């Protein structure tokens, strides 16, 4: 399809065509992503509603399905309130600094074999670098708002994100040790064979720690002390309204989807079919049922949806951690476990321990 577009645009100069194709790819990724973000908010309210034996939003459209659209329209037409004595330049810059890295990280995410915008060599490192930039938006928002609640939220969030980034980084080191590559596509392909080959088995502690650190990195319950409605109102975005607020919201949910997708890709075999090695090869290839049972983007989306559901489930189940407990969990529990398990993984890789590393 891309070749067809390329030839149709051949009257334009070469560089411009490349630029247009890249822009097209970005739109093809971001539009479904923003749609998914919008409907994740609805899913969150519905799922938590059902868990708490309520119905959740059910007024706008059939079964409340148009609720995200109503929310978006409402947020767009609300007034953006700029606090007096706030630093206006940084106040406006903060949401942009949050959503920018959250979107940029998606550039290297593979959805299927070769289905990726930028297939770079060190894509795992790129994602880690980009997600680590998101904290600036939060800190700057807290400081520029000129509000004590916002500032406290920003400080909490900065300390928390920096702490859990270490555990998360160590978990990723384990993955790249096991896969022998920093490229996400190659990491997924290293898990080929059967369900047993998925990295969640040899890297089980790292898998759990990565996902829990992901909860902390995205400031989600039970680690949402940065928002902490019961103590500091809404934390770093207490002064934000209308679109500036919804941009923070978009970034948070885009990060949730990113973490879910990365967990699925790095530990649960990404787009690989769970029936590999169980069903005969002939059933997994070819048309019809083979398309459904064989490897493909639908498995990745299904696994991602499972982890997104876990995010919501955990939010509805666990009470918020106290701040010192969060810090203890990150520094005194997760980091030692990851370091020990890194040595175990290294020993397994060197010793060619089967069935994963032989």
């Amino acid at each position, binding site marked *: 399809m891309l070749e067809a577009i390329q030839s149709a645009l051949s009257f334009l100069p070469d560089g411009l065509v490349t630029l247009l194709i890249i822009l097209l790819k970005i739109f093809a990724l971001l539009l479904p992503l923003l749609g998914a973000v919008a409907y994740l908010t609805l899913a969150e309210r519905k799922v938590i509603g059902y868990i708490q034996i309520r119905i959740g939003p059910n007024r706008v459209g059939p079964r409340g399905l148009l609720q995200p659209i109503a929310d978006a329209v409402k947020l767009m037409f609300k007034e953006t309130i700029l606090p007096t004595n706030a630093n206006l330049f940084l106040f406006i810059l903060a949401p942009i600094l949050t959503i920018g890295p959250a979107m940029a990280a998606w550039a290297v995410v593979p959805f299927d074999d070769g289905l990726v915008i930028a297939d770079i060599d060190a894509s795992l490192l790129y994602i880690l670098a980009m997600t680590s930039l998101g904290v600036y938006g939060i800190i700057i928002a807290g400081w520029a708002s000129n509000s004590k609640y916002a500032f406290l939220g920003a400080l909490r969030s900065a*300390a928390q994100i920096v702490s859990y980034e270490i555990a998360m980084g160590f978990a990723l080191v384990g993955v790249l040790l096991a896969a022998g590559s920093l490229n996400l596509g190659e990491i997924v392909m290293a898990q080929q064979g059967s369900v047993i080959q998925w990295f969640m088995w040899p890297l089980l502690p790292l898998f759990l720690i990565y996902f829990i650190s992901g909860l902390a990195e995205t400031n989600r319950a039970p680690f949402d002390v940065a928002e902490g409605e019961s103590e500091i109102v809404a934390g770093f975005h207490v002064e934000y309204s209308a679109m500036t607020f919804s941009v923070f919201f978009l970034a948070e949910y885009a990060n949730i989807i990113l973490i879910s997708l990365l967990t699925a890709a790095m530990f649960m075999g990404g787009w690989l079919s769970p029936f590999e090695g169980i069903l005969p090869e002939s059933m997994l290839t070819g048309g019809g049922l083979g398309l459904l049972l064989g490897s493909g983007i639908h498995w990745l989306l299904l696994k991602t949806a499972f982890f997104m559901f876990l995010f919501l489930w955990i939010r509805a189940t666990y009470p918020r951690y106290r701040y010192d407990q969060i810090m203890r969990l990150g520094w005194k529990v997760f980091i030692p476990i990851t370091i020990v398990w890194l040595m175990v993984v290294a020993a397994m890789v060197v010793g060619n321990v089967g069935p994963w590393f032989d």
Partner: protein
Amino acid sequence: MEQTIFYIFSTVLVLSAGAVVTVRNPVFAALFLVLAFFTSAAIWILLEAEFLALTLVLVYVGAVMVLFLFVVMMLDINLTVLREGFARYLPVGLLVAVIMVAQLVYIVGPARFGLDKFPAPPPRDADYSNTREIGLVLYTEYLFAFELAAVILVVAIIAAIALTLRKRVKTNFMKPEEQVLVKSKDRVRLVKMATEKQDD
């Protein structure tokens, strides 16, 4: 094309590096330093050093500068106090600056650092892994220096902790390992007794 990109990034880099030392507000200075790090990472990517560039963003921008900003935001800096003695220290400052510039020019000037001395490396193939090459060199040729650096860092960590560690005498803190061992019968005693007749 590449040259244009380089000049755009280096302009931003030089301007933001200048702004770090000239802006009044320390928070803005820290943010300009972040911008300077980020743009130099972009220039490193132009040099095909993607591992170093991404590590620069990850470590310096993503962690070190966050803590920096953290501290700077909590400081209550009085600028007039800071500017006292500016004229008095100016000659010393100027002398140091002149010597540093002279040293820089001597070392990285065109006589020693020109393109003829250090030609641009030939572009590598798409499957050339920068990360793998650095790892190979680091763990074979420079293993000793690498481990030495690691030991020095550990010593620095221990020193920093030892300097800031103080035992507060009267604080209540919980020991989770004791908390999880608590049984309900340690805390609550259920007593069975006959109902007593109430006096009228």
